[in-house]
């Protein structure tokens, strides 16, 4: 409901405003008293510019100096601002406004002074309506500008004159070589009027000089033309207040257009244009005209007979020159008329003095220290100040300037600005600079610098002149126009009104509110939407204060009726927040005391609630000592609210930043200053570190920017932000690990800053470290374990069928097994490493890898010549690990056991067959003998048969007895031989081995020598080739070859010459020997039996107990070798013996 009411109130206000807006605005713009006083003559100064326009100001100063202090005269000024607005509708509005203003009883004007061409025109047209009884005095007007003959009954004035001829002539005397005369003139009516008034005179120079009329040129074209000119061109600047499009140029801007080329001599006709690079001329002066007009006005007011003023007077022009420019152009003083006025002569004087002293010491310290201008000495190279005078210290606000550098003071707004005064290519010229003084404010300065010598030391001498106010006036409109452009349309409408009032107040002059507007529509919008309360506030010397005027908006704003405020000023003071009052009063008093601009924001309690008011006002001191402020109040509640909203949104952002589970900071990339840090960082560091240097605060022990700073990685070559840069670091302050994401972003003020979001990853790092350690532990175990471990993954073909496997890792033991380097195996296919396709055990391995069911295989790997026991496990699908144990030794032992068992088996066999066989005979024939003995017993017992009969029986039994005894005795011998053989075998199997390298040539020679008798008797031929060395027990190996050669000799074929050949060679790490004969040979079916115990092929034919080859086999086996036979029946046999080779030979 409240909000609705507000709207209704506002609409009512708008309606009311529409009716009274004009009147209200008129009133509010009057700065001096509005109440009529009897007996007082009202003089209205009407000018079409505004404060800051040099000539109008000069004229007005002239008027004010005469009339301002005169009793009985009430002086007021109206600014038409036709400078910016020249169309008829605007003038018509202005007329309406003035009509309300000046036709009210008690507000009639007695005399109007029109100070320029447009004011004159306005009076001419509007006088009958606006001030029918007032007399008009004009000035600032050219004779050619007079529209109608002056009616002496109500009008008189002073003509402005131009000394064109004198000006051009003196210019020519300065530059006798000049060939061209360029005339600069703008497009405004005033520009045109001036041009018109000198046109005829100019024509006279045709023929003498090339006359270049730069009239109504575009500013840019004008500049370009002038820059292209040589020194033989003299420029005559008339005026340039508008370009052809109607864009306004302030007088300094116009003058600067004309002086764009510093080598050219530029002359002017108006005194106010001098400086800005213009050398001068014989010029008219506004002040003199104003003063003259004021004197005429006084006479008019005092003289009832107006006809006496029909004569239009003129004011004499004078020569005025800028000393600095003269000097710059090298024009000597003698060329200047004696009566000429020299501007900027202070500088010139100083320079002269310096030169006069021969460059040694330009003047005394007292002069320097007490000089009324700001003077500073500095080192040319470094810009460090070595001396500054009292005025300089006061100006900059530092008790001592010595030691500071220009760089500290100089404020560089943009690259266009000049470099500091202490530069090498010093140019003794004036320079505009902006300096920052101790209170932080910026001042515009005109700096004159020149290098002087003190002793032999070059010193830069600078004289500075504060031109802040001047520059401010020039720039305000430009800046505000710029601001306007930057604002949104909605805000723009609001701001137009504020700026309008602002500009007005800044110059503490009255001006038509409408002056800013060129249409009814705009005007309305401003009037309706202006949130500003315009007020006039006064405070007497005694401290009594009142509001002589306050606009109606005040009621809307404060809820207090306007009348109540004007009746009792305290009523508005009472609604100010009590806590804001003391400051408010302090500021007011300060402003009153120093007449400084008043600016204050305070809170008020109103019916609508709390509102924020911004007050701006410019103070004036009235004659009675009362201070009067003209200003306005703006309800900035919404702005404050929106600022608060921004603050809130900012807070939200900060909340977001704070809620990120990471530390966030933003730092300047050049100064390393921390601009923002989030709460996590504050908490982690336990103190406020904003504003500190990042490398000093965030890290520890750094004596400069961190060596690992990523700033250079955040910007590309063009200085634009790159992608986020991510890295990890262990912070040197808290020892924690952070994952950092850095990025350059554009900070609110436009500079590039680094933003880092750093997440604490200490736990992860710890886990990683623990994992690493554990991994390391297992890795060590893995590498050092004696089991051969290899990790594999299956390799599939296009159909998804496993075809191979790849080794992904293996331990040291595995490399030992394969004899290949890890690098040679890892990543390789099984088929490559094991040189078989498919690789070994692919199916078995794949089953484990696919099903995850562990398996175990035990097999001989021919490639490695080893027996391996392999456990296969699958750590994950399609992968498998093999853990292999070398069981070759076990297998070897097993084989040994097997052989021993075989031997044992043979012994058992021998025991059951060969040892029993003789016993069967012994027992059998013994029984037979018993039978025989029984028979004899029976015969003897019966005794009947007689001795003959007995003899016959005995005799017949004798062969059987003999045979039985023969068998018994043979069997006993057989038994003995077998037992002896077993004993020998057992001894040979238990004999200690003394393995040494054997010289087999020598060994065989010894064997042959021991068999010499048999060899000789059998007539066999022995062929012995050179033999390789081997490792073995000398006695046993001698036995081996002795047996083999002995066998060969035993089984020779009697039908042919026996030949025994002994050869040897190294094959696959073994020394292999062969004993070859050409004897009877062994049938294939017998070959496997010949090494068996007690096996004899031909027991009848040959000697021996059938133990020789058994012993050979046993010895060779015990010496780590092998024995085998190749034989063909009736052809011969070859017995091979393989023994470990001698590694140091062969």
């Amino acid at each position, binding site marked *: 409901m409240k909000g609705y009411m507000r709207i209704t109130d506002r609409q009512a206000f708008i309606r009311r405003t529409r009716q009274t807006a004009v009147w209200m605005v008129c009133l509010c713009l009057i700065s001096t008293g509005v109440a009529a006083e009897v007996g007082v003559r009202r003089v209205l100064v009407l000018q079409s510019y505004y404060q800051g326009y040099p000539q109008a100001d000069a004229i007005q100063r002239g008027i004010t100096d005469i009339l301002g202090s005169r009793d009985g005269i009430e002086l007021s000024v109206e600014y038409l601002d036709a400078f910016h607005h020249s169309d008829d509708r605007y003038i018509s509005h202005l007329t309406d406004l003035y009509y309300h203003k000046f036709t009210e009883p008690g507000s009639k004007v007695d005399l109007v002074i029109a100070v320029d061409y447009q004011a004159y025109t306005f009076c001419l047209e509007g006088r009958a309506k606006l001030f029918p009884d007032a007399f008009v005095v004009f000035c600032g007007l050219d004779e050619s500008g007079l529209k109608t003959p002056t009616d002496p009954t109500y009008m008189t004035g002073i003509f402005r004159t131009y000394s064109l001829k004198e000006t051009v002539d003196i210019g020519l005397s300065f530059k006798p070589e000049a060939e061209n005369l360029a005339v600069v003139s703008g497009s405004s009516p005033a520009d045109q009027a001036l041009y018109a008034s000198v046109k005829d005179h100019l024509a006279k120079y045709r023929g003498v000089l090339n006359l270049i009329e730069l009239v109504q040129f575009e500013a840019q074209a004008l500049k370009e033309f002038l820059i292209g000119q040589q020194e033989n061109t003299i420029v005559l600047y008339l005026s340039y207040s508008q370009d052809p499009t109607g864009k306004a140029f302030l007088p300094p801007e116009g003058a600067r257009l004309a002086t764009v080329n510093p080598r050219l001599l530029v002359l002017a006709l108006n005194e106010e244009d001098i400086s800005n690079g213009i050398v001068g001329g014989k010029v008219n002066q506004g002040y003199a005209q104003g003063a003259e007009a004021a004197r005429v006005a006084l006479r008019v007011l005092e003289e009832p007979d107006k006809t006496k003023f029909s004569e239009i007077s003129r004011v004499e022009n004078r020569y005025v020159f800028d000393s600095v420019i003269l000097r710059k152009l090298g024009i000597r003083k003698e060329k200047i008329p004696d009566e000429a006025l020299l501007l900027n002569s202070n500088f010139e004087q100083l320079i002269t003095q310096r030169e006069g002293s021969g460059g040694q010491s330009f003047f005394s310290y007292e002069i320097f220290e007490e000089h009324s201008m700001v003077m500073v000495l500095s080192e040319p190279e470094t810009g460090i100040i070595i001396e500054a005078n009292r005025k300089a210290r006061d100006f900059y606000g530092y008790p001592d300037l010595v030691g500071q550098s220009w760089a500290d003071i100089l404020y560089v707004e943009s690259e266009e600005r000049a470099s500091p005064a202490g530069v090498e290519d010093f140019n003794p010229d004036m320079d505009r600079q902006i300096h920052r003084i101790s209170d932080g404010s910026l001042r515009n300065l005109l700096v004159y610098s020149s290098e002087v010598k003190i002793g032999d030391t070059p010193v830069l001498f600078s004289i500075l002149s504060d031109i802040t106010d001047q520059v401010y006036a020039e720039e305000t409109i430009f800046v505000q126009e710029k601001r306007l452009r930057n604002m949104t349309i909605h805000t723009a409408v609001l701001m137009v009104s504020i700026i309008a009032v602002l500009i007005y107040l800044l110059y503490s002059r009255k001006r038509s509110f409408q002056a800013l507007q060129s249409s009814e529509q705009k005007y309305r919008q401003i009037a309706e939407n202006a949130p500003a309360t315009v007020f006039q506030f006064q405070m007497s010397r005694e401290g009594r204060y009142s509001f002589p005027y306050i606009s109606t908006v005040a009621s809307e704003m404060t809820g207090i009726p306007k009348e109540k405020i004007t009746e009792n000023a305290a009523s508005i003071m009472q609604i100010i927040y009590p806590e804001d009052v003391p400051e408010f009063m302090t500021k007011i008093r300060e402003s009153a005391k120093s007449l400084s601009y008043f600016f204050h924001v305070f809170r008020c309690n109103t019916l609508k609630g709390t509102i924020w008011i911004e007050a701006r006002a410019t103070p004036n001191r009235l004659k009675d000592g009362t201070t009067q402020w003209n200003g306005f109040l703006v309800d900035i509640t919404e702005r404050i609210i929106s600022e608060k909203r921004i603050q809130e949104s900012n807070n939200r952002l900060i909340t977001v930043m704070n809620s990120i589970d990471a530390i966030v900071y933003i730092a300047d990339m050049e100064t390393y200053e921390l601009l923002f840090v989030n709460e996590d960082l504050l908490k982690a560091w336990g103190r406020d570190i904003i504003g500190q240097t990042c490398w000093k605060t965030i890290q520890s022990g750094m004596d400069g920017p961190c060596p690992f700073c990523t700033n250079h990685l955040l910007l590309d070559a063009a200085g634009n932000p790159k992608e986020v840069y991510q890295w990890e670091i262990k912070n040197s302050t808290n020892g924690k690990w952070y994952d950092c994401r850095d990025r350059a972003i554009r900070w609110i003020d436009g500079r590039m800053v680094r933003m880092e979001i750093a997440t604490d990853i200490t736990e992860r790092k710890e886990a990683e470290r623990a994992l690493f350690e554990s991994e390391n532990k297992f890795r060590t175990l893995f590498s050092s374990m004696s089991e051969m471990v290899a990790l594999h993954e299956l390799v599939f073909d296009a159909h998804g069928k496993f075809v191979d496997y790849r080794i992904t890792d293996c331990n040291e033991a595995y490399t030992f097994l394969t004899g290949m380097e890890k690098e040679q195996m890892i990543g390789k296919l099984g088929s490559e490493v094991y040189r078989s396709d498919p690789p070994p055990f692919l199916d078995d391995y794949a089953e484990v890898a696919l099903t995850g069911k562990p398996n175990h295989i035990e097999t001989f790997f021919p490639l490695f010549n080893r027996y391996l026991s392999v456990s296969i496990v699958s750590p994950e699908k399609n992968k498998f690990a093999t853990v292999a144990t070398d069981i070759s030794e076990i297998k070897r032992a097993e084989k040994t056991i097997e052989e021993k068992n075989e031997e044992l088996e043979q012994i058992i066999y021998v025991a*059951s067959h060969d040892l*029993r*066989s003789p016993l069967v005979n012994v*027992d059998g024939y013994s029984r037979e003998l018993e039978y025989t003995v029984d028979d004899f017993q029976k015969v003897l017992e019966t005794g009947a048969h007689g001795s003959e009969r007995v003899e016959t029986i005995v005799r017949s039994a004798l062969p059987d007895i003999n*045979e039985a005894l023969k*068998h018994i005795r043979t069997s006993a011998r057989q038994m003995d031989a077998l037992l002896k053989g077993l004993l020998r075998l057992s001894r040979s199997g238990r004999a200690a081995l003394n393995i040494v390298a054997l010289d087999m040539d020598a060994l065989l020679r010894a064997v042959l020598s021991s068999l010499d008798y048999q060899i000789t008797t059998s007539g066999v031929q022995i062929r012995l080739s050179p033999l390789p060395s081997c490792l073995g027990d000398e006695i046993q190996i001698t036995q081996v070859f002795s047996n083999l050669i002995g066998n060969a000799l035993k089984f020779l074929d009697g039908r042919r010459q026996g030949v025994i050949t002994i050869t040897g060679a190294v094959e696959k790490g073994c020394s292999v020997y062969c004993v070859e004969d050409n004897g009877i040979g062994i049938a294939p*079916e017998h070959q496997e039996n010949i090494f068996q115990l007690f096996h004899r092929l*031909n027991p009848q034919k040959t000697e021996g107990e059938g133990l020789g080859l058994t012993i050979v086999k046993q010895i060779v086996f015990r010496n780590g070798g092998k024995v085998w036979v190749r034989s063909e029946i009736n052809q011969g046999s070859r017995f091979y013996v393989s023994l470990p080779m001698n590694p140091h030979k062969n």
Partner: protein
Amino acid sequence: MNQEVVILVAEDDEGHAGLIRRNLVRAGITNKLILFKDGQEVSNFLFKDGDGPHREVGVSYILLLDIRMPKLDGTEVLKKVKADSELRKMPVIMITTTDDPREVEHCHLLGCSNYITKPVEYDAFVNAVRQLGLFLSVVQIPKVNGSH
């Protein structure tokens, strides 16, 4: 036993051969007996190899075979005999000194008709040969070449 049946004895030990002969005679077996002193000789006889005597067609033979013999041992001869279509019907009686059951089993598998161990204790040996004689007297010995 049919007197036409010829008893072949392959026995490398002459003593053993004599004992077998004596006891066969004692058991009343008076058939012709041919002695071979190793597996090779009996093999040559049966398969008509070599220079020595060869078997005759139309004669019935019975083979007493010692296992442990030089050159060819008894099991090898047994294998050859059982592999021959003419000889396979011939009864083969293994005579051995061992009583290793594995060996007995092995010979039975190869198709021997009977198995006699040569006990060291002579009475048992005599008994065994007598048993053999009894066996030989009742058994029908096929003629080699299929004719009875």
